[in-house]
């Protein structure tokens, strides 16, 4: 994703290296940011904050512990959640609604949907569900990690994920996505 040489130059605060790293990572960062930050007008501000923190804390990146991509992803997600909390501190309160809370082992064949379709469903998904759903399903965070990130209990993480899946299942059915339904979803 990013050359080690560029990382070293960023550590030395080379402005040219900043640009190189930004251009190498902006696509990946943006793909994450637009999933977590629903308001498009907030994207530039969130991305500026992310890269500012990335440049300043680049010295904490340890190549032996993993790829730069994963280090950056964690930073981006953390920053997105931080941004989300600052913008909507009360949005994490999950509205009560009647949802079947039994967690299903059903396969969610989202890979059969296009990016636009997935993003469309995610935009419609309630904020609280969406965060946990993305963290768990797309970014492979465990319930424990999600609970730490979102400052909720592990049990709440499980419940919200179950609700998110139920919501998604319901909306896929309502929209008549026969392709998914035919696959047993």
């Amino acid at each position, binding site marked *: 994703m990013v050359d080690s040489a560029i990382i070293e130059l960023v550590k030395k605060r080379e402005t040219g290296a900043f640009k190189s790293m930004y251009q190498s990572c*902006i*696509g*990946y960062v943006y*793909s994450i940011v637009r999933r977590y930050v629903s308001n498009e007008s907030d994207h530039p501000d969130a991305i500026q*904050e992310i890269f500012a923190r990335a440049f300043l804390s680049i010295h904490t990146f340890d190549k032996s512990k993993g790829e730069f991509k994963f280090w950056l992803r964690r930073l981006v997600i953390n920053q997105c959640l931080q941004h989300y909390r600052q913008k909507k501190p009360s949005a994490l309160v999950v509205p009560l609604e009647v949802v079947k809370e039994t967690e299903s*082992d*059903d*396969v969610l064949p989202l890979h059969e949907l296009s990016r636009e379709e997935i993003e469309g469903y995610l935009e419609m998904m309630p904020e609280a569900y969406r965060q946990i759903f993305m963290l768990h399903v797309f970014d492979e965070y*465990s*319930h424990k990690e999600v609970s730490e990130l979102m400052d909720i209990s592990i049990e709440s993480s499980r419940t919200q994920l179950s609700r998110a899946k139920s919501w998604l299942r319901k909306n896929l059915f309502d929209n008549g996505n026969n392709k998914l339904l035919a696959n047993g979803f």
Partner: protein
Amino acid sequence: MDSNKDKSKMHMPDGQPPLPPELDWERMEAGILKKMDELESGKTPRRPGNFKRKAAAVVLLAILVLLVRYCTRTNGGFVFENAVATQKQPAEAPAGPAVQQPSKVVQEPSSMETGEKAPIPTSENTGQATAKNGSSSGSPSSKTAAKTTQTSSLKNAGKPSTRRMDSPTSTTGQPKQALNNSTETSISKSPNLGTDKTVSAATTPAIPAPEAHVESQPLMAADLLPSITFFVEGEKTAPRFPEIPIAVPEKSPARKDKGRVFLLGGATVWDMGYGSNKPGRDDFENTTVSFHSGLSYAHTLKNNFTLNIGLQMQELASRFEWSQDLNNYKITLLDTVLQVRVNTLTGETQAVRGDVELDAPARRMVRHHNTVRLYQIPFAVGRTWFSEKWQADVVLGGAVSVFSENKGRTLYKGELLDYDGINTSLVSTQGKLHALMAGRLTYNLTKKIGLTTGVQFQKSISNWSREQNIRMRPNSLSLEFGLKYSL
């Protein structure tokens, strides 16, 4: 359900969304750099979770800064004192060829400030210096200075010096060890007493020679300036501080006092002190816990003897309890049913009421709080012993009651008698002499003020009673607490 087992886990489909134009580096660069500045300067809004942690860190940092400042101030005092000693020495050193070399060494700081290069001796000279130190003490008068120099050389061997001579070296970039060695060499080569003394004071401020003791000289502002420069320019190595002689505090600072004032008060137990013949009222009077307070002055005489005089008030209290059976004591019962009449024909009853007077057993109880208040002038001779912060006093003398007040009720010749006055028909308390003995223990909080506790015993020598064949010589024991103030 663990995340590892979650079958729904997947990645987003490949391909990144097209970037909007506002995310170009040219447009974002300024914002990113600005945010970096804000983050570095700490202007970003703080998360409430981190606030306590950061506040604790700030508090710890503040404590650390205060400690460092305190230590720095203490060290600064040491440097100033030595600087005065160092600067005053060249003036005392006799002029002459033999003095020139050491004087030059001493004056190096000033020459370095003007940009001149000082000669840097080689490190080989150090060995010569140490070897020659023993032979350089030829004259008896120079022994002290040479000895001091030797001690300095031994103590400084192998250790980086942080003294005043290092400062110019560090500013000119010369090796510090070399300059240290040059200092030692200069000392050893100077045969003159004045020279030795001068250089030893400059190089070994930690161990001042008895002749070169200058701590009583006042610091002048001009004297402080070079030493301040030295301290600021000093190397990073922690300075090795000298053994500063600490004045040993006096074991008993109160011993030199001209006198001491005691303000004491406390509780007193006492008894009437009747002789073999006791008055009838003795059965009805019981002494109770009383109190006293006083101010006394102990003037210090020779050999820690003291002369004590003061003013004291004692209130001796007693309780009079007497009872008497009353004969022919009548009570009247009002509206009492005297008779009940019954009509035999109708069966109707009728109560006849009236007042009835009856004889009843009765007892008269008399209780009274009696007081004898004495205003006394105690006079006594004492002896004081000192031990660290403690002091003990023993006092032996007397007390004269110059004024008294008697107030109460008692039984006299079978009748109750109320009294209120200086002297009553029963007792005379004014102008009476009492023997006095007291012991006090004082803990000196400061040189002037101490906490005192003690006991005081008084025995009346005079007879208080005015009744014939009755002797009344009360005695009292007081437990007292208070303050001592040394004059």
